[in-house]
């Protein structure tokens, strides 16, 4: 079972932008390639974090949200998520958002997204 799970996953690397295009406090929404949910990438005081862009509570873009420390607050209903873990800190969100691995090379931000393959 465990093995087949790793086999059904593959990684997609999404290019985001140059590091200097995302200064501290800023966020950007990135449309992933087919099969990849839109991503929200944040510069939280110099640390780059990537999560799924869509709030788990209701349809809203977290890249539009209010960034404070390592927490983003949904622009609509104020659900707060920890950018490091994706965990919600209170209502109305009950489910975490997915977090993604960030890679920075040559000043370019890329996000590695695990995608479940269609074939099981």
């Amino acid at each position, binding site marked *: 079972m465990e093995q087949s799970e790793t086999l059904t996953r593959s990684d997609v690397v999404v290019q985001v932008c140059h590091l200097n295009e995302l200064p501290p406090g800023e966020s950007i929404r990135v449309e992933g390639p087919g099969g990849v949910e839109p991503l929200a990438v944040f510069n939280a005081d110099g640390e780059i974090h990537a999560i799924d862009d869509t709030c788990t509570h*209701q349809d*809203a*873009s977290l*890249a*539009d*949200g*209010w960034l*404070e420390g390592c927490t983003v607050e949904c*622009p*609509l*209903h*104020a659900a707060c998520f920890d950018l490091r873990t994706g965990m919600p800190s*209170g*209502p*109305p969100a*009950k489910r975490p958002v997915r977090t993604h691995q960030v890679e920075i090379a040559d000043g370019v931000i890329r996000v590695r997204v695990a995608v479940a393959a269609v074939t099981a």
Partner: protein
Amino acid sequence: MIRSVAVVGASLAGLAAARALRDQGFDGRVTLVGDEPHRPYDRPPLSKDFLLGRASAEELALGTEADDALDLDWRLGSPATALLPHERRVRLADGGEVSADSVVLATGARARNLPGFAGRGGVHTLRTLEDARALREELRPGARVVVVGAGFIGSEVASTAKAAGAEVTVVEALPVPLAGPLGPTMGTACAALHADHGVRLICGVPVRELLGQPRVTAVRLADGQELPATAVVVGVGAEPNVGWLAGSGVTVDDGVRTDAAYATNLPGVVAVGDCAASYRASTGRYVRTEHWTDALEAPRTAVRTLLGGGAGPAAGDDGRRRAAVPYFWSEQYGVRIQFAGHRGAEDEVRVEAGDPADRSFLAVYEREGRATAVLGVNRPKEFTRWRRALATTGSDSGPASGSGSGEQAAAVL
């Protein structure tokens, strides 16, 4: 020393109060008294996704697994009928009693109806899950729905009814809808959404009477016009649930009066959410906010008032700083309307970005050259920036930083 707390009203504000009690280290008994049979659920979807059948009742639940650890004593299904402050007891309709050293009043509000409207088939108000279920049955293709009142809930119901295939007319007694919260210019701009989506809006004409028995068949307006109706939804505001407090000695004036830290005139009794009329230094008035975000955030301060006896937020509690700027949202016809700040009746408003004609714009309200409030229509990102700026102005300047009072902070905006 407080050993037990009764929270009366088991909805958004009540649950937030229970969480805040545990969060702030209270380990005594916490009893949640609620007249509805349900665990706390979220009301905003009742006029939106739930009404349209896009969200289930389970999805409305506000509680999470983490709440099990709060060790709450639930007393659901029977309303509180009396607060006996000297005996430190709350009396329930089922004959039971809850003794408590302190009490959080969180009984919210109920939908207002028009005189003579209740009890006729096909006439609805919207506040509870049952209300929404009953109304949902009426919204189908071929239905003719008349919505009385073009406020936020009325407008949302109109939008949902239209999406469900009904023919919809909205009737508003005032000449301009939403002028109260948004001012006439922006009220007009937002109300234009109805016409965009094929919903008729009639303004400045009050409703005179309902026709049809036992079921409504039409609505007659003051000018004699008759609007055929298979269903009527009355969205004319809400009244605080405070009747049960008569004789308790707690001061009530359109809601339970509290200071800026939610203390009532009775020691050991605080009030939060839609049932509370709390002092706002920014306007010098007692305001019943009736917004979701306020009901969620106020209990943290109220519980601090109860436990610590002191007013105001603790240093570094950034949540309080944000609460200094009231915020609400609405969703109509797929358009997001967001508003934050303290708008004064005399404030000027200018469009900062976008264009009302495109139904995508940001408007800023100003008094003496300073921003007091912001309205966003389908502009979540810019709106968030402005909302943040309003909150930051409030916390960084003025005499409030020393006293730590969020309300005073808002006053300098």
